[in-house]
């Protein structure tokens, strides 16, 4: 960074008018604007953000599902009380058990965004001016005092020397602009002059990412427990009009034991019409129309049939045994027969467990009337043998597996990706391709011309060497003629 505009802002001092405003007592909005564009405030905000994130890393955080439910939250608090003792209440009141959704966190992000936007807007005009309309005429003092400088004496006349200088700069990937001022020719050479705009990209990209995250948090949906028994079709809901059917599920393992793959074959239906068939694997989700289906978990299921006394089929589907019973011996699933007002629990011994009440290979049905806690009937069913409970004939058809999916729609993620790309691009622009500005002036000299070259870059030790190389190149090209002085600090 060698531009005049940014050098001024580098010192971190507020521009003088602002200081006078403060003395005069300013309107609140001006005060706010000044604070928002103040680096000190921005730094504080960043540190607060860092601290809050650290707190969120170190303290247990209540899961999202628990936070929405007061009873579950109270239970969760009791669970962490042994860890935090008397601090539990304090931490709870301060919202530190859900740091990332607390007002502190959101407020800091909001202020930071405001600060970023005002800063970027304020700075972009200056950057544009620096890039497109550099000050062309530099004083003699500049060429005498700049930290990097070189003098070249050439036997060429000024016009030829300029052409040579130009081509040498070009060879080093500098863009050259020229202004004639009487006998003197002023040259401004830039490399990567657009790179400083990377800073604007960086700052705005961060706001973009926050906006994306906000959209993620407030729109779309995420259903983490979509269990689809193999052979059955389940509605996705959430206004998507989609249904998903699992054709198959397979889990495989390495000989040494760890899982190797989980894979389901899914068919998606829209309005009853199949629209997509694809294998769903971890790391290879199925996407359709902005909705993504992630392979997430799996478990046992049973295919159940229910008929009325007249033989009309009420239900004929797989039931995922999603839950584990209290004694942890059984897996439990549930389905509803809305017309009958019945709620049916299906209980099967978990794999490897023995429940003395349920013979191996059988399954137990507990049928409740909705809203009641006393069962209408409990019966153990063997495969293929119908039984009647509460006037409905139930058949345990066979065992199956279910595949568990996360189904999500996240319109914010696209914006987050655009922001991230912009952020990375900006960073590499700014750090790896820093803007370099080198100035030169050509004057007619006794035996041809005198060329002075200079640059300001105080903060990069490597630049001095770069400048030396460039100056040597320029000297080779603009010569011949004895170099009267060596460049750089050597003659300082």
């Amino acid at each position, binding site marked *: 960074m060698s531009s005049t505009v940014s050098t001024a802002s580098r010192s*971190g001092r507020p521009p003088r008018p602002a200081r006078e405003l403060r003395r005069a007592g300013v309107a609140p909005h001006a005060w706010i604007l000044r604070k928002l564009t103040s680096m000190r405030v921005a730094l504080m905000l960043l540190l607060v953000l860092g601290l809050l994130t650290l707190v969120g890393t170190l303290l247990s955080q209540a899961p999202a599902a628990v936070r929405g439910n007061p009873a579950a939250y109270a239970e969760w608090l009791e669970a962490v009380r042994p860890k935090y003792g008397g601090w539990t209440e304090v931490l709870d009141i301060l919202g530190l058990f859900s740091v990332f959704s607390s007002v502190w966190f959101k407020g800091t992000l909001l202020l930071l965004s405001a600060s970023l936007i005002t800063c970027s807007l304020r700075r972009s005009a200056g950057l544009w001016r620096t890039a497109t309309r550099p000050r062309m005429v530099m004083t003699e003092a500049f060429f005498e005092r700049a930290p990097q400088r070189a003098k070249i004496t050439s036997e060429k006349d000024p016009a030829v020397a300029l052409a040579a200088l130009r081509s040498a700069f070009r060879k080093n990937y500098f863009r050259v602009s020229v202004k004639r001022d009487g006998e003197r020719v002023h040259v401004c050479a830039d490399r990567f002059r657009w790179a400083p705009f990377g800073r604007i990209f960086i700052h705005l990209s961060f706001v973009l990412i926050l906006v994306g995250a906000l959209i993620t948090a407030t729109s779309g949906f995420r259903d983490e427990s979509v269990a689809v028994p193999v052979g059955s079709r389940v509605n996705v809901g959430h206004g998507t009009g989609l249904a998903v059917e699992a054709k198959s599920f397979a889990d495989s393992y390495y000989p040494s034991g760890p899982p190797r793959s989980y894979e389901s074959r899914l068919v998606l239906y829209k309005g009853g019409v199949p629209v997509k068939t694809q294998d769903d694997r971890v790391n290879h989700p199925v996407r359709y129309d902005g909705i993504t289906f992630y392979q997430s978990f799996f478990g046992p299921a049973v295919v159940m049939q229910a008929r009325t006394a007249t033989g009309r089929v009420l239900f004929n589907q797989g039931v995922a045994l999603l839950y584990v019973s209290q004694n942890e011996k059984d897996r439990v699933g549930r389905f509803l027969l809305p017309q009958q007002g019945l709620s049916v629990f299906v209980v099967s011994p978990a794999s490897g467990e023995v429940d003395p009440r349920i013979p191996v290979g059988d399954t137990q049905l507990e049928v409740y009337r909705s809203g009641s806690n006393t069962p209408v009937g409990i019966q153990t069913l063997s495969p293929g043998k119908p039984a009647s409970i509460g006037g409905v004939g139930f058949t345990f058809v066979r065992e199956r597996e279910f595949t568990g999916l996360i189904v999500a729609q996240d319109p914010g993620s696209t914006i987050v990706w655009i922001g991230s790309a912009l952020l990375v691009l900006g960073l590499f622009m700014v750090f790896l391709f820093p803007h370099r500005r080198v100035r030169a002036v050509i004057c007619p000299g006794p035996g041809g011309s005198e060329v002075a070259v200079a640059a300001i870059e105080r903060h990069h030790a490597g630049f001095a060497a770069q400048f030396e190389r460039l100056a040597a190149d320029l000297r080779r090209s603009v010569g011949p003629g004895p170099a009267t002085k060596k460049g750089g600090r050597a003659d300082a």
Partner: protein
Amino acid sequence: MLSLSQYCVFAGMIAVVLALVCYVLAFASDRIFQARVMVAADTVGAKITAVQDGEVARGVAVFGTLTSWLAFGFLSAALALRWGATGHGPFANMYEFSVAFAWGALSVNAYFLRRYRQWTIGVIVLPVALGMLLYSTTVPSTATPLVPALQNNLLLTVHVATAVIAYGAFAVGFAAALLYLVQSGGGRRLLPKRELLDDLSYRATLIGFPFLTLTIVLGAIWADIAWGRYWSWDPKESASLVTWIVCLAYLHARSARGWRGQRAALLLTLVFAAALFTYFGNLFFGGLHSYG
């Protein structure tokens, strides 16, 4: 091939130790020489020029530098062999990642050696690399097959490779910052000038920060693909964000508020501490990143 890879790690470890010994000898010989010069000057009034006295030290240091290149070569070979044997980037468990961390530190160190020719930074970076290598001997080195969540060769490789470069850069930045702080009582012989150290630590951070950003972004992309959510406030994610934010604060303090020297160096040691915390974090806070 796996055992060959392990031999290479071992050879690398020995090379790191040798390089370190050379560097320490360089410092020591310089000390002794200086002491002798002083004694000589006291007793006989002998005059020995300053040019001569650094020479022994520098000669020994050149050996150290060559050996640290050798260590870099061995670790590169070890990682390449392991990659060949397992078929995925050598970044899938704590063992592989520790060796990779040491490799990252050595590679950024090598880059700085070439670019700025300041071997003294190695006095700090080499012990860091050695620490990671020693740590790698305490964890199982068997090649574990990839569980489904890790089965994304491209992202596994790039996400962790960028992390390794970032951490290596932070280790180098930390080394320069530490040497800066050590000298706060005034210049020490053999060590680079404080301004240069200040600048070197900044240069290292300018590499580390974009790479850390890339690591986090790639991690988010991967999380979106594998877990169905780009950010879950998983402890490892949060910890990497802390590192990122402290680093960001450093960059702003430096470029916009002109922080240099002592305060900047202290912030950089904090950045490295945060990076280590992120690295070892999953050992004590579990979470989605705990792949053992």
